[in-house]
């Protein structure tokens, strides 16, 4: 008997639809490689940290004054983009635009606060290996946030033009999962640079 009989006569979605979209799968793979990238960066930090035999690591206990609220800002932005994507799925363009815009604004706030955070540091990227690691790893994350904001801006423009709706919103889903990823990575970076020094008791 012919196998084709088993699969014929079934309705199949056409084109770029939700999690059937090729781009969705490509983005998931892309997130894996990006996660590996941050894994190697954080490996570098921990490796250099445990190899310290003299001097202080880190040079000062990191202040949570700006970093902790800023972390919460980024987490809230994840909620905002979730709301926007849900709007897209339901065909509610107002919710869609509001959610994406809110995530963009919160992302910009995060970047701005992070610049102040950098500015307040007593050390620079050139002063020690710790400074090099701190600014490079948080810089890599900042670059990803900025790329994420550009992605969300594009999606906002396209949504504004009415491109997406209940059937076709894979772009929104793809941008959303990337934004969630950037937030999760920040938690790893935040834990590494801001929390572990308190746990190890070194100062």
């Amino acid at each position, binding site marked *: 008997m012919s196998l084709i009989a088993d699969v014929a006569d079934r309705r199949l979605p056409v084109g770029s639809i939700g999690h059937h979209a090729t781009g969705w799968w490509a983005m998931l793979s892309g997130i894996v490689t990006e996660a590996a990238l941050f894994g190697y960066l954080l490996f570098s930090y921990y490796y250099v940290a445990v190899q310290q035999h003299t001097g202080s690591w880190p040079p000062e206990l990191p202040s949570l004054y700006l970093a902790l609220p800023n972390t919460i800002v980024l987490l809230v932005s994840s909620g905002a983009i979730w709301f926007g994507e849900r709007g897209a799925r339901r065909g509610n363009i107002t919710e869609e635009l509001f959610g994406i815009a809110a995530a963009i604004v919160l992302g910009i706030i995060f970047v701005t606060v992070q610049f102040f955070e950098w500015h307040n540091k007593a050390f620079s990227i050139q002063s020690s290996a710790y400074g*090099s690691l701190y600014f490079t790893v948080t810089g890599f994350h900042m670059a990803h946030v900025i790329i994420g904001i550009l992605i969300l801006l594009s999606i906002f423009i396209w949504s504004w033009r009415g491109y997406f709706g209940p059937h076709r919103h894979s772009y929104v889903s793809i941008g959303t999962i990337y934004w969630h990823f950037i937030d999760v990575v920040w938690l790893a970076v935040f834990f590494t640079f801001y929390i572990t020094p308190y746990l190890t008791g070194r100062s």
Partner: protein
Amino acid sequence: MTEIEYDRVPDVAEGGPGSELATRLRRFWEGRPGLYGWLATVDHKTLGIRYIVTAFAFLALGGIEALIMRIQLAQPNEHVLSPEQYNQLFTMHGITMILWYALPILTGFSVYLQPLLLGCRDMALPRLNAFTYWVFLFSGIFLYASFLIGAAPDAGWFNYVPLASIEHDSGPNIDFYALANIFLGISTTLGGINFIVTILRFRAPGMSINRLPIMSWGTLTISVASVLSIPAVSVAFFLLWMDRHFGTHFFDPATGGQPLLWQHLFWLWGHPWVYIIVLPALSMVSQALPVCCRRPLVGYSLVALATVLTMVLGFGVWLHHMFATGLPTMALAFFSAVSIIIAIPSAVSLFAWLATIWTGRPDFSTSFDFFAGFIIVFVIGGVSGFMTASVPVDWQLTDTYFVVAHIHYVLIGWNLFAVLGALYHWFPKMSGRMLNETLGKISFWFVFVGFNVGFFPMHITGLLGMPRRVYTYSADMGWGTLNLISSIGAFVLAIGLLITLVNVIRSLRVGVLAGPNPWDADTLEWATSSPPPPYNFAVIPTVASRSPLWEARLGEARSSTPERGFALDHGKETLGTTMLDAVPDVIVKMPEDSLAPLLLSLALAALFTTMMVEAWFWLIASVVAILVITMAWLWPRRSLGEIEGSTT
């Protein structure tokens, strides 16, 4: 048609060459002629052949560098090259072969063959496929531009700090390598993503994961490994570039940095990479050798599992490149053990090949000869690797010619022999013409004899204590005769490769026409014409076994239908299927030819050039260009079914 189409029941049709369906598909799939079509093509067959030709060009460059070095080393106290020139040549030889030949050649075969093996009409992301090719080409040109200003990389392909730090290597040499490596990494990573999505989502209906062609197992495995490991080397080179130009201290122990961090990051990528550049070659042997032996591969499941297991273990052995750096004994013992254990999955594949030959009826074609030669070399390279996995042996042999012999047995033996066999096997599919068997056999014997004469003596040279990477040696060391033999072997090997090149050029003009299936092989790529039409298959084939074209003779209960299936002729379309069971899941709209991939890779080349010459204004301009082109590329399109209210 103007009605909005979000889903439909695909038509089932029978389609052969010359049918009305085939004519209609050709109209959708054939690219435009002329310069535009040439620059904008996204056809995986064109791109695959470009990959193969470009990678062979890099093989020729790396080969010429090797031959010049073999002239220098043929006798003691030669002065063909200065020490500085020798440093640049051995570094460029290593980089070229390992990064710009070894994987791209396998990528080329995979880009050409995977959609055909899987029964779909193109790679999952056709424009990305074009992009990764251009990036590969431009990154190679970027690297070789270093020769033009006489400042090629000169610290060896693994580029250890502090030798590669700005204090000890202040010219632009290392920067060329650092930036070219990151540049190429973009191509390799995105290419890996493309293969993952293609193999997991674009298989013919019925090709469940346990029916995946064994060659696809190799490509899938190494694509996952690429995606996971390449960031390590990109990070390493980026940190080095920062240390060299922006005053950071990652590798500088004076301010808390750690030189060994370089070695960790490099080998965290470097050892998986060794498997990345051989596993697809091994899997090509597993795919084509059974055809030469007129039977299915023995132990398909074991070979597939061994491929995956080798790769997994390959992530846990990087420290064996660092046995001599003063690591704790516990770490040495662990990594030594894993390095030895990795022999087990390799042996599984080996015995599967031997059993396939033993129980089959070998046709003794040129492909078979190369595969048989491959198996012999595979064992020798494996045994010398097994030896150096032992810590005391490694301490004795590290940085000697023994290691040079080992790496060449692994990389030439496991990669080049398999690639040449694959070339003789699949050239008829790609060109429609057979390669000449007589020239092929002559080429094989030159390559096989030349290779072993060239590289086997290096084991002994190494045991006699000759260090690698010395530009000459004095006569009283007693290494002259062995080196002369190695040099002669290298030239014989080169002649063998030239004979195959002549064979290819000759066969393109006067080769015997191949027909769809000259080897009477079993997988889907042989179900379509040679060369295949732009749309690959007039109907999406349906698959019921691992050997769809051999079912009658193997007495399979169900039968695949390569000639009857979904027509998908409402435009440029192919079928997406589910990840494990390959049940039809979505009708995918495929993109037209586009200049965006070429333009984006040119903008990236501009970005890396501005980083090289530190022209910050132009760097910003390049970034803006990259953003604009990316936005244009990704702009949602009705024709791809990306916009609500799409029409067909």
